[in-house]
Structures are given as C-alpha cells and as structure tokens.
C-alpha cells in the first residue's frame, strides 16, 4: 500500500485519470468525432441559407446584425447545452450499463469525484468545441465577431457550465434511480433552449416568453454572449450577465449534486448499483 496519496489533493488528481480514460475512449470512435463536426457545420450551413431570407431589421441590433451571426451564437450555446447534458446523463448511464460503476465505487474514491470524473472530459471538450465552432464559422461564413468580446463571452460560458452540470446531475440521479428518464430531461432541455431565443428573436414569440427567457439561464447566457460577440458590449455588461448566471448555476449545481448523492446512497443501500 505504499505510494498512495489521500486527501482532497489526491481526489482532485484522480480527475486526470478520468480525463485520460475518456479521451482514449473517444479517440477510439473517430467516426463519431467526424460526424459530430459534420452535423454542426450542416446545421450552420442550413441557417446560412435561412439567413439570406431574413432581413437584418428583424434581428435585435437595429438592422446591423445578420441572422447568421445571431443564430451562430445560439447554435453554439444550444449545442453546448445539448451535448453537455446528453453526455452528462450518458456518462453515469454508461458506467452502470458497462458494470464499471460498481467497480469504481469499491475503490477509495468519493461519489462526488466519480460524478465529476465521469464528465470532466466533456466539461473541458464541449466549451472547447463551442469556441472552435465560433471561430471556424466566423471564417467560413464571413461573420465578424467583436474581437474584444471573446474573453468576456468565454467567462459567461464558464458561469453557465455549472448550470449544465447541475441539470445533468439531476438527470443522472433520475437515471440512476429509475433507469429511464433521460428523454424527459431532453425534452425539458429542448423547451428551455427553444424559448431562450437561441434560434429566433424573442420578439417573434408570444409576449409571455420574453419574461421567462430573462430568468432562463440559457436565455441569459445566449443574450449575454450575443451582446459580447456581436455588439462588443464590454466588461460591465459581461459582469452583469455573470452576476445573474452565478446564483442560478450555483443553485442548480447544488441541487444536482445533492440529488445524485441521494440516488447513489439509495442504490448502495438496495444493492442495485450494478443493475441496469
């Protein structure tokens, strides 16, 4: 038993092992990586044609913003949300169906590290994918984003990550307990994304949608990032957006971790952790 490390630092270092594990697994599915990027660009291509039909006057920004610029930010954040959420839910589901969850839980590793470790790769890869997508689209479709908006937009995205993580943890807890239910979370995510103004200006929706979007973390993140990338709104606006996002993200994350811990405790008590 020599050479073992314990404590918070040791637990944190285990995340590196999780990241390496998932990187190797993902690299073994090269076709899936390629098709993910093809899908993303196909979506952007479709919206670039739609953009030719939409007059900029319909977009917030006084006719100066093209629809492709508007929707690219929406696609990026919605994609971030969808991919992040799907992978968060499937991470624990996969561990359970592979039978590796039980093997992991008999090691001296805390449930929180298992949960975070199972998604650490995606928490790093998905924001990276979002940024690369924005850069490539801006080059390919000649969309000009404000150069001084990238860093504040990234910080807004960072403040949004705990919300996705929290929602994913709630979904994981549901899947752990009921073995099903990821579909319901997917529908909720779609409803939240669709009414956030990701694809269409909120002015096109019924009047009651806009107030909901103003407290919807996805809507807050998207409008905040648009203000930075398209309008170059600056640091003050970014901090206001982050101040709105942080409590919502924090509460969702705490709820998610609590739900996951409860679900894990229940499965251990019943001895059904390895069943799927």
């Amino acid at each position, binding site marked *: 038993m020599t050479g073992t*490390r314990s404590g918070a630092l040791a637990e944190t270092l285990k995340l590196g092992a999780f990241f390496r594990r998932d990187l190797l697994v993902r690299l073994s599915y090269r076709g899936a990586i390629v098709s993910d990027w093809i899908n993303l660009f196909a979506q952007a291509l479709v919206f670039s044609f739609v953009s030719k039909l939409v007059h900029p006057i319909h977009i917030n920004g006084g006719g100066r913003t093209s629809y492709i610029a508007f929707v690219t930010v929406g696609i990026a954040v919605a994609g971030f949300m969808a991919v992040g959420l799907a992978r968060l839910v499937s991470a624990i589901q996969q561990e359970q169906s592979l039978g590796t969850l039980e*093997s992991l839980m008999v090691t001296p*590793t805390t449930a929180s590290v298992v949960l975070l470790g199972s998604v650490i790769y995606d928490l790093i890869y998905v924001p990276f994918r979002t940024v690369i997508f924005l850069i490539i689209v801006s080059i390919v479709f000649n969309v000009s984003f404000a150069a001084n908006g990238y860093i504040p937009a990234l910080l807004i995205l960072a403040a949004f990550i705990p919300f996705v993580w929290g929602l994913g943890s709630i979904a994981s807890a549901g899947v752990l307990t009921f073995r099903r239910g990821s579909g319901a979370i997917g529908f909720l995510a779609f409803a939240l994304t669709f009414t956030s103004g990701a694809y269409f200006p909120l002015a096109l929706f019924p009047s009651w949608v806009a107030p909901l979007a103003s407290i919807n973390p996805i809507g807050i993140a998207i409008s905040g990032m648009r203000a930075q990338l398209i309008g170059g709104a600056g640091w003050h606006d970014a901090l206001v957006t982050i101040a709105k996002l942080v409590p919502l993200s924090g509460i969702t994350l705490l709820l998610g971790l609590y739900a996951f811990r409860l679900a894990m405790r229940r499965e251990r008590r019943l001895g059904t952790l390895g069943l799927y």
Partner: protein
Amino acid sequence: MSVAGIDVGQDPMAARRHIGFFPSADRTFYNRLSGLENLAFFGRMYGIRRQEALARARKRLVDVGLSDAVDQRVGLYSHGMQKRLSMARALLMDPPVLVIDEATDGLDPEGARRVQDLTRSIAANGTAVIWTTQRLDEIRGFADAVTVLDQGRTTFQGTVEDLMLKSSARGYLLRLRTADATLDDDALRRAAAALGDRGKLARVGTDREHFRLDLAEHAVLGEVLADLSATGVVVLDCAQQRSELEESFLRLTTART
C-alpha cells in the same frame, strides 16, 4: 464491522484501500481500452501516480497469465481472460483482504482451476480471501472455513468437513439387474424387504435398470448393498446423487423457504 483493524462505518474510504474486489458480473471494464490502461485507471483510483499504476498493472497482468494481451482492447478478451483481468485488478494494490464473488461462474474446468490455483497462491502469501460461491463442490480441499448465508442470516460457520457432516439425506443412483434379466416386481419387493427401515428403493426412468436408493441416517451403504446382493440382485453401478456439501447446503438453506 472492521476490516484490517479499520472500522468500516467510521472510515469507509480507509477500509476500501485494504480490500480487493472481484465482481461477479461478466463485463466490468472499459471495452475500448486495453487491459493495461484499464488496470492503470483503477490503480489511480487508489491515489497512486500513473507510472506506479502502470508498473503494478504490468506485473499483475503477467501474474494472471495475460502478458500477451497487455495492449489488446478488453472488448476482445474472452470470458476467461476477463475473469483473470478481474483478478489482476483485485490484486493490483496488494490488499490484505480479497473479496471474490462467483469467480468461476461461466468458466470451463480448466479456467476455473487456473483461478482457484491463483487464489490459493495469494492466500498462501497471507491474504485473507473471502470466496463467494454457489458451486459448493469447489470449496472441497480449498476453503479453510465456510459460512453459509440464507436470506442474509448465517446458518452455518465451520470447516468444510463440519459442513459435510450436516448432510443426512443420502441419495444414490443404482444400476441393478438379476443374474439373467432386469428386475421384475417380485425381485424389487424382495430387495425392498431386505432394506427394511434402512432406506427406500424406487425405479427411475423407464429402462428398468436404474433405481434411486434413499438411505436413512443410521444405514451403512456397504451393508445395504451386501444385503441387496444376497437377494439375488446384481449391483452394476452405484453413484452418489448429490455431494454431501450440496445436501448440507440445501438442508441449511431451504428450511425456511
């Protein structure tokens, strides 16, 4: 409850560091990763550095006879290879306590023997091995102590020999004939009379040669067979229907079910 002197309730993480676990499930590894990468990952879950985890993983893969499959994806491993990989993982951190759950389930006799031999050598080196099984005959000459659990309650604790002594119902499958023909009803009546209260003899199947003999506790098999022979019955074959261990287990576990 304590493991290696550590109270499991008070410090479960410390207790887990001292336990190697061999799960019963078939597939408990990441199929897209190699055997080496799988073991190194689980090693790191014990808080060791990657280099040390790799070194331990390589050593254990050699110990369990998987040195040729170190870099092969686990998804391509056979059932027996996965069982051996499970053993390598359980031994990775040299735990003082090893919990093995249904290790030989689904293995051919040769594969089962390899796992048992490996376990025997681990136990010989001082590791406490808890071997969970429903294949009772494999504990003969293998386990030092036996605990029988029935619905979460201990119904027996002792040695394998003590467990065998719990057996009382003794069933045998006999192949009987007379000198020149199969047993007719008269011959069977004579044989039953010779048995008396020492047991019961009944036909099995339709070939008129096979019989089930259930002996009472006080009966001696050799005497019973000799008395059957004295009635003109030829005993061609005699096989125990169930082992004493199986009989004992059933006796200890089916009483309440």
